[in-house]
């Protein structure tokens, strides 16, 4: 009985500390690193082994065919990249003539999802890269061209990525059609977002596309976020109730792009001599 009371009190003290000050982050990271990550790795092992064997035994012809196609694709991309660079240089020159601030540019690295949150009420995933690869808390994650979420916590070899749909997550977005802003807040449900603070006078309709606004400096601007699928208004409310579907299909994504924002001008100077590196290192 006494033991129970003591443990309950410790739990409550822990909760208060964690909630108010976030003091227990080292404890959390330590437990994840030394006790949870090994179990997670072991549980995931059969899945990875299966995909490894599948690849190992896949037809030689098939592989060489894929290889040829990929080589061709690299050529196409290299040419496209070259063109992009001349445009980027021109853009920089024009910007310096206008004495505008240099635009922000990004570096990418591809990571794999190790496990999906086992807690049904928080939408996050664990990826297979951590501080050793330069991942940091608050880093933006993309899935293809669309925004996926941001880094919540990180250990040396894994990181937790909070999805856009997590109930704790919010991102400022802009309507492509009208340019008006709104806040896209996660609902905790898969592939479902809610747009908050949409005033009744705002021009919004089903099918409107929203992109990140870049406000707050965290997310890069103009990346697709969500498409509106219902707009409702209850008389008496100050705001409309708008539901949206994110462009990222969170149930299907297996790979995530982590991005680093680098200074544009310094980046360009270095690329004048060297070929462009796509597999980013830390900034």
């Amino acid at each position, binding site marked *: 009985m006494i*033991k*129970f009371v003591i*443990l*309950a009190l*410790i*739990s*409550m*003290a*822990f*909760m208060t*500390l*964690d*909630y108010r000050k976030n003091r*227990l982050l080292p*404890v*959390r*990271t330590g*437990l*994840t690193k030394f*006790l*949870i990550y090994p*179990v*997670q790795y*072991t*549980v*995931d092992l059969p*899945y990875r082994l299966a995909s490894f064997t599948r690849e190992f035994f896949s037809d030689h012809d098939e592989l060489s065919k894929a290889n040829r196609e990929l080589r061709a694709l690299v050529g196409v991309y290299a040419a496209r990249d070259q063109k992009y660079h001349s445009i980027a240089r021109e853009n920089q020159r024009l910007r310096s003539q206008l004495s505008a601030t240099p635009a922000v540019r990004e570096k990418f690295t591809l990571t794999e999802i190790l*496990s*999906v*949150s*086992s*807690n*049904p*009420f*928080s939408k*996050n995933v664990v990826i297979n890269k951590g501080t050793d690869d330069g991942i940091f808390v608050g880093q933006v994650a993309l899935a293809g061209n669309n925004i996926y979420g941001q880094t*919540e*916590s990180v250990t040396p070899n894994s990181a*937790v990525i909070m999805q856009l749909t997590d*109930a*704790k997550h919010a991102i400022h977005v802009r309507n492509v059609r009208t340019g008006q802003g709104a806040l896209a807040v996660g*609902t*905790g*449900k*898969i592939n479902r977002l809610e747009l908050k603070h949409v005033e009744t006078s705002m021009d919004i309709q089903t099918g409107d596309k929203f992109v990140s606004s870049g406000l707050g400096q965290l997310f890069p601007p103009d990346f697709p976020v969500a498409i509106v699928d219902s707009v409702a208004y209850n008389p008496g409310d100050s705001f409309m109730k708008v539901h949206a579907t994110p462009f990222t299909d969170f*149930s299907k994504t297996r790979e995530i792009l982590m991005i680093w924002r680098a200074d544009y001008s310094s980046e360009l100077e270095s690329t004048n001599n060297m070929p462009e590196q796509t597999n980013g290192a830390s900034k």
Partner: protein
Amino acid sequence: MEEISPRFTGAILLSVVVAFALTILPVNDEWILFRPEWLALTFIHWGLVSPNKSSLVFAWFVGLLIDSLYGTIMGQHALGFTIVLFLTLRMRSRLLMDSFFQQLFLLFLVLGTYLLINLWILGITGNTPEGWGYWYTVFSSLLIWPLYHYYMRLYHAQKKSF
């Protein structure tokens, strides 16, 4: 129900590790709400069959692990599992544990309390889950219990040698 001791040293630990693995096993999105509370079931089982070997401190620590895994506030599941084991230990002597329905009744009560306290803490920290989905796990846990309870016998000391 008489006291049964674990089959070998670390049998309880092993059963908890297995339950932990079941908890983090990736499942389909439609099924995730129906994931039974494997760890709570494990603690209830050991509380019933082997009260002297069940440790509240251990349950508390495993809860802390779940908190860092789920990203929930540190101490939420720690408190939850402590309550689960404590309630089980308290109530086991008041009920006929060999009766299947009394067992289910205890399970329902303990899991209900556990989930309710979790819900309160989630509410206080502002992450209230929407809808009835939160409670589905009670039914899946109750459904899986007889099977799980039977499987857990693997970890018991055997009375007869073959």
